[in-house]
């Protein structure tokens, strides 16, 4: 594969999945033309009849994936922007996430819903949202949010192979920006595992998506100041890898959780709560959260958008405070 960016990683993985299993098909808006981010470029020609352009109707995109997965196909649906998935909230919350539970596993849904999320692309209110807190609160729906191309490959593969519905979040800002050297196609990954991407003794930063990269950048900068950070890539947002997070926090005694979603009710609250309950005795400082302010995410104008979003500088500043605590 050589060096690929996230978009190439996604496209290649979809291509491989379509080639490997004729039950796999894609459905969504503008996919045949390659999709607005070009994630499906060339696939319609290569797999005729298996890349389906749907009407502009998100509830049905998800509901049709449910029916097709129930039948035994392996639908991979795309919601063009995560911000537009909300019309399908009911189909995910009331139906997809409950299918197996309702039948004690007799009926199940091997389906994936891919969608580009996150801000920093001047997309304003409806092309920038972080939706994970809403959808990671549905027992029965797995939620994955990788940061590196290799994880996009291995976890998308795992998501397509998974007999359960998986919401696969692709951070728009990582699409072209984040590149990685790959020898061959990464093997199928394990959903439900976090990974420590950097080790340090002073504090633990917990992040995912583009914020993971900003956290790593901040950690690099802090190292120069003699502050050593452990950085955890959460990777799977539901179910959370509690043990990995707790271990990483126990080792340093200090936790800083970073996400670009708004603070109140964001996933950081859950992670902080897990730490506060299960790592209490190892904590040397308050559990800190760095997140977007509690305003409807996210303003369009550059300067307001930058004001809204956490970044390496804000992360470094918060980490310095925490280290000094």
């Amino acid at each position, binding site marked *: 594969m050589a060096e690929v960016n996230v978009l190439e990683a996604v496209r290649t993985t979809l291509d491989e999945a379509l080639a490997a299993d004729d039950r796999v098909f894609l459905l969504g808006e503008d996919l045949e033309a390659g999709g607005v981010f070009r994630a499906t470029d060339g696939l319609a020609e290569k797999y005729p*009849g298996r890349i389906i352009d749907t009407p502009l109707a998100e509830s*049905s995109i998800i509901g049709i994936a*449910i029916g*097709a997965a129930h039948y035994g196909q392996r639908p991979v649906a795309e919601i063009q922007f995560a911000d537009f998935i909300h019309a399908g909230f009911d189909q995910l919350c009331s139906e997809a996430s409950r299918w197996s*539970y309702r039948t004690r596993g007799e*009926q199940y849904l091997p389906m994936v819903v891919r969608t580009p999320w996150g801000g920093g692309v001047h997309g304003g209110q409806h092309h920038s949202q972080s939706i994970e807190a809403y959808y990671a609160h549905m027992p029965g729906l797995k939620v994955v949010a990788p940061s590196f191309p290799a994880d996009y490959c291995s976890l998308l593969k795992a998501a397509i192979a998974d007999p*359960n519905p998986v919401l696969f979040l692709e951070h728009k800002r990582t699409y072209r920006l984040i590149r990685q050297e790959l020898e061959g196609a990464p093997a199928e990954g394990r959903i439900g595992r976090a990974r420590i991407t950097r080790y340090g003794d002073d504090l633990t930063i917990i992040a995912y998506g583009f914020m993971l990269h900003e956290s790593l950048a901040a950690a690099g900068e802090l190292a120069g100041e003699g502050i050593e950070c452990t950085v955890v890539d959460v990777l799977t947002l539901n179910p959370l890898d509690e043990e990995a997070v707790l271990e990483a926090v126990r080792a340093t005694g200090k936790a800083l959780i970073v996400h670009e979603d708004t603070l109140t009710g964001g996933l950081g609250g859950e992670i902080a709560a897990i730490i506060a309950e299960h790592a209490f005795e190892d904590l040397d400082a308050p559990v800190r959260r760095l997140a977007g302010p509690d305003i409807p995410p996210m303003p369009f104008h550059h300067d307001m958008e930058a004001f809204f979003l956490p970044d390496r500088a804000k992360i470094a500043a918060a980490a310095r405070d925490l280290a000094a605590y």
Partner: protein
Amino acid sequence: MTASETRAPRSREMLHDYLLSEEQLEAMYRYMLLSRRLEERMMTLNRQGRADFVIAGAGQEAAQVGAGLALKPGVDYAAPYYRDLGVMLVLGMSPREAMLNALAKRDDPNSFGRQMPSHWASVSRRVLTQSSVVATQLIHVVGVALAAKMRNDPIVAFASCGEGSTSRGDFHEALNFAAIHKLPVIFYVENNGYAISERMEKAMPLPHVVDRAAAYGIQSAVVDGLDAVAVYQTVRPAVDQARGGAGPFLIEAKCFRLWSHSSDDDQRRYRPREEIEDWTRRDPIALFRARIEEDCLFPAEDLDAIEAGVEVDVRAAAKWAFDQPDPVPGDALGFVYREVSDG
């Protein structure tokens, strides 16, 4: 709605006569009766405090049994809505299973006590697990039909709902997609004139659900839902044609809700007494028997025998179901996810 009010099916070509054998007519009668007796029993159990919740199809048996018989059981996929006990019986659910479901027993094959009664599911009968959220299932069967079409699998996907549920956005998105892709889907609406307390007029600008079909250019038919034979003769050709590639159908069965919306409802609060009485007089099961006798299709003794048999079956099923185990508290856990290995 009275039978006379209902219009003839739109697409006449559908109506080349599908004649029914004596066995089929007997089966129709048995299923309708079985559905009714089971529900009467469930209501009694509810009043006795032994069944928490009952939502019944009483009054709609002809619409349900006639349609159910038009499907290929175990082959065609179905998403029957909560009133469709009649459809489930035709598809093969036994009186015992119906009672396990009504009593939320551990071994209820629909949801093992996890869901309210009448939220159907069955792998062997190809019944998709149903939620309480109305109309979502209309989209699911579209997905099933799309998948089957991709695999050249000649199945038909059937979904039912009430007329009130056709106001939801999911109805529009489902019919729109099914029409675009000419999918083998039967959208079957049992129009009983009410959504809980709301008369149809509050939910629909036009008098017939099938008026909605024009937006999608799909075939549709209205049928007298009190006449099981007419229902069968309308749905069966549609099923065959859909299987043959004619695309989706929207079929409306005009019927009525004999009882309150559910065991938690009291329809006397919002319905004129005369209407309830009028409907009670036009009980589809009585009408069916009267017609059989009148046409002397087969001897009344046979019908009596069927009734007697049904009585016995229902009583036995209820008695048996009582003694079946309840779920244990811990059964609440498990199967949130299907094991990856099982995939």
